[in-house]
């Protein structure tokens, strides 16, 4: 399979290419820096199309309307290009050139960019509204500001399941009592399956270990996963077709087609599918506790070397206003990061059955990579 080899090495080459481009292309930008009047900021995201549409069609036009003088240039990248984007950002900071973007939306490289000191620190003085962000949503990484959140919830067909389990041990029992009616996707291929697997592993770990795995990487502590992996392997005979579909969408499809009656799903994907009619009205969702299935905020950040700091920070402040937070609820069913009581009643009622205020964190990307591998070796 030559294509794989090419793609791999091409990534490496594109990093080099991007570095060179970043070095050449940014020189001109630095001159018109603080020139007041109209300015253009570049907003970059590598998130899914739902999020792209949210920004491109809803948030950016509304922001430009309320902030004459600032235009926002929308740019997208492929999620597989994360390391290249991080490399070009790091290169621009190192050479003190303008960065390739002024606001980063959702990107997976933000935690790494934060620890490498590439982001402008967010305080209540430069983003006053950040004081409203609830304690549970606050980011521990400097310069990374949450603006919406989502979590893995248990989606079920209320016509077949009248009283869904709300605690993980009850869910496990339900799966065993109803063989073939539960499905979760391969954790390598989507966060919803990964969230379920992580909750199963967490049920044998203490708080401190879970926290260590979500904030860092400790290979020795991973022996604590053995019990959870064994539980998961024991579930295989009882899941749908004894197999694990690929991707978050595929389990939603199975639920929509009535082939299964219960799945772990991303809250926002579940609600959007229901709104679009790919899931029937009888589909409902609850949050699972003891331990919870994880979720997490999605964040914004401004590169420390952006020449349009003020405009970019204005945009971040504006997104935290209740009106925009309610708009995000309406458009993509994202959890608000400010207290939901500040939102209109209609926006609050969307999340019936879900706990939107407490979101347990996912494992760090390195811990999750090892979790996926061990799952694939011992459970699949």
């Amino acid at each position, binding site marked *: 399979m030559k294509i794989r080899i090419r793609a791999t090495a091409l990534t490496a080459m594109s990093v080099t290419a991007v570095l060179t481009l970043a070095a050449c292309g940014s020189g001109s930008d630095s001159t018109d820096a603080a020139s007041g009047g109209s300015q253009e900021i570049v907003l970059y995201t590598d998130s899914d199309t739902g999020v792209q549409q949210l920004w491109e069609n809803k948030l950016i036009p509304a922001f430009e309307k309320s902030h004459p003088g600032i235009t926002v240039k929308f740019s997208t990248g492929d999620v597989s290009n994360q*390391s290249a984007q991080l490399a070009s950002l790091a290169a621009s900071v190192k050479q003190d050139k303008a960065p390739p973007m002024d606001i980063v939306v959702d990107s997976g490289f933000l935690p790494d960019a934060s620890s490498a000191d590439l982001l402008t620190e967010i305080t209540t003085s430069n983003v006053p509204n950040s004081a409203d962000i609830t304690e549970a949503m606050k980011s521990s990484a400097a310069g990374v500001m949450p603006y919406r959140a989502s979590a893995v919830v248990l989606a079920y067909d209320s016509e077949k399941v009248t009283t869904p389990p709300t605690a993980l041990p009850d869910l496990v029992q339900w799966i065993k009592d109803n063989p073939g009616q539960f499905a979760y996707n391969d954790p390598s291929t989507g966060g919803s399956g990964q969230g379920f697997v992580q909750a199963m592993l967490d049920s044998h770990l203490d708080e401190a270990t879970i926290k260590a795995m979500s904030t860092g990487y400790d290979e020795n502590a991973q022996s604590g996963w053995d019990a959870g992996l064994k539980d998961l392997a024991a579930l295989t005979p009882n899941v749908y077709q004894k197999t694990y579909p690929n991707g978050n969408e595929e389990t939603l499809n199975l639920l929509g087609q009535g082939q299964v009656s219960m799945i772990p799903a991303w809250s926002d994907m579940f609600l959007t599918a229901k709104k679009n009619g790919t899931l029937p009205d009888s589909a409902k969702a609850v949050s699972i506790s003891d331990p919870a299935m994880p979720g997490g905020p999605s964040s914004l950040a401004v590169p420390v070397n952006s020449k349009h700091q003020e405009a970019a920070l204005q945009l971040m402040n504006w997104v935290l206003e209740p009106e925009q937070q309610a708009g995000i609820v309406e458009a993509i069913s994202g959890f608000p990061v400010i207290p939901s009581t500040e939102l209109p009643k209609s926006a609050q009622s969307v999340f019936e059955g879900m706990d939107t205020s407490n979101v347990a964190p996912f494992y760090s990307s390195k811990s999750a990579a090892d979790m996926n591998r061990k799952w694939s070796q011992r459970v699949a």
Partner: protein
Amino acid sequence: MRRRPVTGLLAIAPPVIVIALFVGLPMVSAMLYTLGDTGGLNSTIGSIAQHQHTPERGWLTLDAYREVFADESFRASLVATIVVTLVATVLVTILGWGIALYGRFHDGPLSRLLTGVSIVPMFIPAVIGAYSMLTFYAPNGMLRTIGLALGWDSAPTLSYTLTGVTLGSVWSNLPLTVLLISSGLGGVPQTLIDASRDAGAGPVRRFRKVILPLTTVPTIIAATFSAIGILGSFTLPYVLGPTARNILGPLMDDTYSAFNMPQQAQVMAVVVFGLALVASIAYVWANYRSARRSEVLR
């Protein structure tokens, strides 16, 4: 006729340069990475990867290959890849031959319809085809529904099985096979067939002694294309295949991004590359043979 060599060299220079730069160089660099080299072009990926093997002494190491081949799930997937490739290639070649023969010797609306339908998969994107097969083969899908209607209440569920992937591979490789073998059959002179008939050869003998020898080369080319395509397939096994013991494509992708182990993923890619090389030996032989034949004819 002899051409001046300089003009010829200039003509092939652009493709050679493009291939050397965008295919050759990355491939060499990727292979060096599998052997533990993390400098130069591999420095970025080397700084991100987990569980990477670098040589303790010397320049290169085979540790990554050792780890991959010691992994049970890789070995199972390798066997699955080889078996599915062989079975699907044989099936698609037989089917392609059947359709091409029918189209060649029975010119009528039915044969034209059959040939037309067998070409359709070429115009359906792999993702769409894979998802429709998944729905078709599901426990509540059409295959089982028809089976039930005919009184067969235990019709197999083929979604998420290697059988499903094999059938899907046959489906997606059928068009090219039919086109190549049809054009090969079209090249068999009717006079030769008629002459052998007049000489008293029955249909089987005509097929074995006249038609088959004249279409060996296109058949081998078609089979090689199918085999290499199936070896490297990703979308179909990803959507339709089982979680473990699947074709190597999805495992490579998981290893590369989800397990963050690009070195091991590239080791697997080198293995698949090796398999594709083996499959293309027959192709090179067939090309060589047809080139020689045309020289003889000239």
